């Protein structure tokens, strides 16, 4: 115990010498003072004056010896400081500390004491850690949800650190802990970042340095020296186990926030679907129950604030249940599925951001498709069936006008039948019997020549484009082999290679069918395949219209907070859009002519209203819909986790191969107390000086 408390800094001889100091002071103090003799008429009055002093002799003696006491105290403190007293403190070790604060949606759960959110608790804890930071250590503050952001560069300025922590706002976004830790690993453990932090301009916090990017190689050998840093992760651990994470020089300390028994109910899905063949719709709502007992939930469905319907459903513990609301033919507006207040109160719901889900019901608009063809009866017929007409309106363009951009603009899908345009349209594209103009496709395709009578051996049955399509029962005379470029995939495989492929292009998709339907040979139109005689042919084109044309005009409820939404203008000439955010704030989007509009500020859940030219009104719904975030129960340590198996201990985090146990505080380090002791001694010297002068001058 004593050995833990004290560490002597002196040798025994030095101690012996030091031990002589207090007796010396004592002796000096009581040495007879040499007084100047002075003859006076009588000592009568002086004696009486001193007699008065002697009346209170005890107090007077104390008063006389205040200086002695102060001197002894000063020496005592100095000796105590030399003993280097200290104790095992819970302070953060390490020269560099990164406070990595999770502000994803689940951190809004109000399960802290007095109903504070986990984020508030994390910020308070982080502020405490900043206060405990050993002098000379520097720290940085990183906030992360699905993107990591450096809020404060490495600094030893505690005020700035505190301000940075206080500036972290809650968000409704998902969690990507790996990105955050990689960012910290890259910044905190290299010598380079330290120098940048000290001298260079601060990284623009909004600039969002790419968390996936590896740390930049250091410029010189000196810079390449890596230092150990401690990342203090303040999170509730509500994210998927992180694979493939290399900690490098980063020591991760996990301070879990929240509780293991925090109840929450969430609306995890809201979608409207048209009833087949009609314009009537049904809203599907899924409610998840993240509590330990079954819940009778009342779901209220509102359209633009007006109650449409409310239904009760029973959701078993730890499961989800769905319910359908027939909503007829709703007028365009904001559909809102909300758990009733009574339900939330009964379940003790602690996270409010997922208690409501939104869906946008946009004005019914059929998709627009353009068929560019020198003439193809089979295709034209397949695209103008009764069901196809419900999905999209199909226009036809002559082959020689294929490169007239103005005529191609404004469609959801452009189908090039044996016509190769010079440039890709700003729309989804289907190429039949030709290759897309992009170099990526052409490079791959030129290596494999045209094949004759390819034998179809397999096709992607799960792809919605090939849903209900049977391809094994027709022949093809001649086809191009169309291997998809990077990011694409093969839809139909023949023995000779892929003959139907799909690949993304910007916000669009390119579907390439290697074989033509009809070919012109010797002035006559001939069939290149007998597919047109099969049921699968019109079904396939129906799927194409549904996926490419109808889907882009349908409401989209799959946007998650923080995701970037591309908005194609309805009119080609539109140059700006007015967006009303869920908070009521307005934002104006601008674009460069052919590009679509990009809406980035989708941080909040709710419905974003888009007004184009003040007239057309579209809506985009942004929802959390993330079980990882909605299940706010902190995972408790299991028997195999290797952590302390006390009740209430949070489960360790799995970061790649690293298992980080939850700790309640920072690593324990020895906290030395000699500095405050010396300061106290200095203060006593000042006090002694004051007492002395007061006594002489009074």
């Amino acid at each position, binding site marked *: 115990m004593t050995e833990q408390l004290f560490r002597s800094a002196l040798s025994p001889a030095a101690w012996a010498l030091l031990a002589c100091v207090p007796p010396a002071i004592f002796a000096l103090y009581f040495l007879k*003072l040499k*007084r100047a003799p002075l003859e006076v*008429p009588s*000592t*009568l*009055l002086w004696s009486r*004056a*001193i007699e008065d002093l002697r009346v209170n002799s005890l107090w007077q003696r104390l008063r006389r010896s205040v200086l002695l006491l102060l001197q002894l105290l000063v020496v005592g403190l100095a000796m105590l400081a030399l003993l280097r007293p200290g104790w095992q403190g819970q302070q953060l070790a390490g020269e560099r500390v990164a406070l990595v604060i999770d502000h994803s949606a689940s951190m809004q759960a109000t399960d802290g004491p007095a109903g504070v959110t986990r984020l508030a608790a994390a910020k308070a804890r982080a502020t405490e850690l900043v206060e405990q930071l050993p002098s000379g250590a520097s720290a940085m503050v990183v906030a992360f949800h699905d993107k990591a952001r450096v809020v404060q560069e490495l600094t030893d300025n505690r005020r700035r650190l505190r301000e940075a922590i206080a500036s972290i706002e809650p968000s409704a976004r998902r969690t990507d802990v790996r990105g955050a830790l990689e960012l910290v690993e890259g910044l905190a453990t290299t010598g380079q970042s330290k120098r940048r932090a000290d001298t260079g301009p601060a990284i623009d916090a909004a600039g969002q340095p790419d968390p996936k990017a590896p740390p930049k190689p250091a410029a010189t050998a000196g810079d390449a020296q890596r230092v150990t840093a401690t990342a203090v992760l303040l999170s509730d651990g509500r994210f998927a186990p992180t694979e493939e994470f290399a900690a490098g020089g980063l020591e991760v300390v996990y301070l879990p926030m929240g509780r293991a028994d925090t109840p929450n109910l969430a609306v995890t899905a809201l979608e409207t679907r048209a009833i087949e063949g009609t314009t009537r719709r049904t809203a599907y709502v899924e409610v998840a129950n993240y509590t330990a007992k079954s819940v009778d939930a009342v779901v209220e469905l509102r359209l633009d604030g007006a109650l449409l319907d409310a239904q009760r459903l029973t959701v078993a513990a730890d499961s989800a249940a769905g319910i359908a609301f027939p909503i007829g033919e709703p007028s365009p507006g904001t559909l809102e599925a909300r758990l009733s207040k009574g339900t939330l109160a009964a379940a003790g719901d602690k996270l409010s951001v997922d208690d409501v889900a939104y869906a946008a019901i946009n004005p019914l608009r059929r998709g627009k498709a353009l068929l560019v063809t020198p003439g193809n009866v089979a295709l034209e017929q397949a695209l103008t069936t009764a069901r196809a007409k419900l999905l999209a309106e199909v226009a036809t363009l002559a082959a020689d006008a294929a490169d007239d951009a103005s005529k191609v603009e404004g469609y959801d899908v452009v189908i090039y039948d044996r016509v190769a345009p010079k440039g890709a349209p700003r729309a989804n594209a289907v190429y039949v019997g030709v290759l897309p103009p992009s170099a990526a496709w052409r490079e791959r395709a030129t290596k494999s020549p045209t094949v004759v009578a390819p034998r179809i051996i397999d096709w992607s049955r799960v792809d919605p484009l090939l849903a209900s399509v049977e391809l094994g029962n027709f022949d093809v005379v001649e086809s191009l082999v169309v291997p998809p470029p990077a990011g694409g995939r093969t839809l139909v495989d023949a023995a000779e290679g892929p003959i139907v492929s799909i690949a993304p292009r910007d916000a669009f998709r390119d579907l390439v069918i290697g074989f033509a339907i009809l070919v012109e040979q010797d002035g006559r139109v001939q069939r290149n395949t007998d597919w047109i005689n099969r049921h699968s042919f019109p079904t396939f084109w129906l799927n194409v219209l549904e996926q490419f044309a109808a889907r882009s005009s349908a409401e989209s409820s799959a946007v998650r907070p923080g995701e970037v939404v591309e908005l194609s203008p309805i009119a080609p000439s539109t140059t700006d859009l007015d967006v009303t955010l869920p908070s009521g704030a307005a934002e104006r989007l601008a674009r460069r002519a052919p590009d679509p509009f990009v809406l980035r500020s989708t941080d909040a859940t709710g419905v974003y209203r888009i007004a184009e030219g003040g007239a057309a009104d579209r809506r985009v719904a942004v929802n959390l819909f993330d079980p990882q975030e909605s299940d706010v129960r902190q995972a408790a340590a299991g028997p195999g986790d290797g952590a302390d198996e006390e009740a209430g201990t949070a489960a360790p985090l799995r970061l790649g191969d690293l298992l980080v146990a939850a700790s309640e505080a920072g690593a324990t380090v020895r906290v030395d107390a000699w500095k405050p002791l010396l300061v106290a001694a200095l203060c006593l010297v000042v006090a002694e000086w004051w007492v002395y002068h007061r006594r*002489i001058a*009074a």
Partner: protein
Amino acid sequence: MPTTDLLPADLVTRLERLELVTRKVFRGRMKGERRSHRKGQSVEFADFRNYVPGDDLRALDWNLYARLDRLIVKLFLEEEDLQLALLVDASPSMGFGEPTKLEFAKRVASALGFLGLARGDRVRVHTLAGKQSPPLRGRVSVPRLVEFLGGLAPEESTDLAEGVRRFCLNARGKGVVVLMSDLLDKQGYEQALRYLVAQRVDAYVLQVLSPEELDPAVVGDLRLVDCEDGDAAEVTVSGALLARYKRTVGAFTAGAQEFCGKRGMTHLLARSDDPVEDLVTRAFRKRGLVG
């Protein structure tokens, strides 16, 4: 007229207009200029009384006898001289101050003595050690008075009470006694003053303290040595101690004043650097010794 340090000419000029007065009427030895309780032979009528055998027949009021057929004696006030005893403390402690307390006391004694002599009173100077001047009377004795006072120097240590007792035993007759001392006696001044009270004289106590005693300008660690008995007091003079000392001095003089006041004596406190003239012409006048 003598013009010495003790009795400057300008002081003499001012003193000429003054005289000693006393609150009590004493019986003098010789006829003087002072009214006495004794009925005697002056021109001032005092009272009548019945004749008893042996009375001076010259004092009979014949007119009354004629009218009342009774012998009535007419009484007249007797005019007598006044005895002024100047009791000077010439102990070593009186040798301090600038000018010394003894010097100051000598000047005051000169002035008061001059007043007495000028009005025909009997003046005698005593020291506490027992030294005394011959009885002096009349203006012609002024030089002798001054000479005697001039010869006084701090002598050996004397006990205040003992000195006063000796004076009281020697001094016959009553009158005015002016004790000039610093009263700094470790045995206390009370016993000495009680002797004066018992003497039933008109007693004045002039307590002379030097500025150094009233307001010492010393500081630091000092060993104070008593000039009379060699007693030493070790003090560390600080502001607080000085304030305490001043309070002690104040209490000491106030105590003496109260003691005197209660016993019909008059106490005056004087600094040895006060002008003598002011003391005599104002302070003593205010207190009734000089009129």
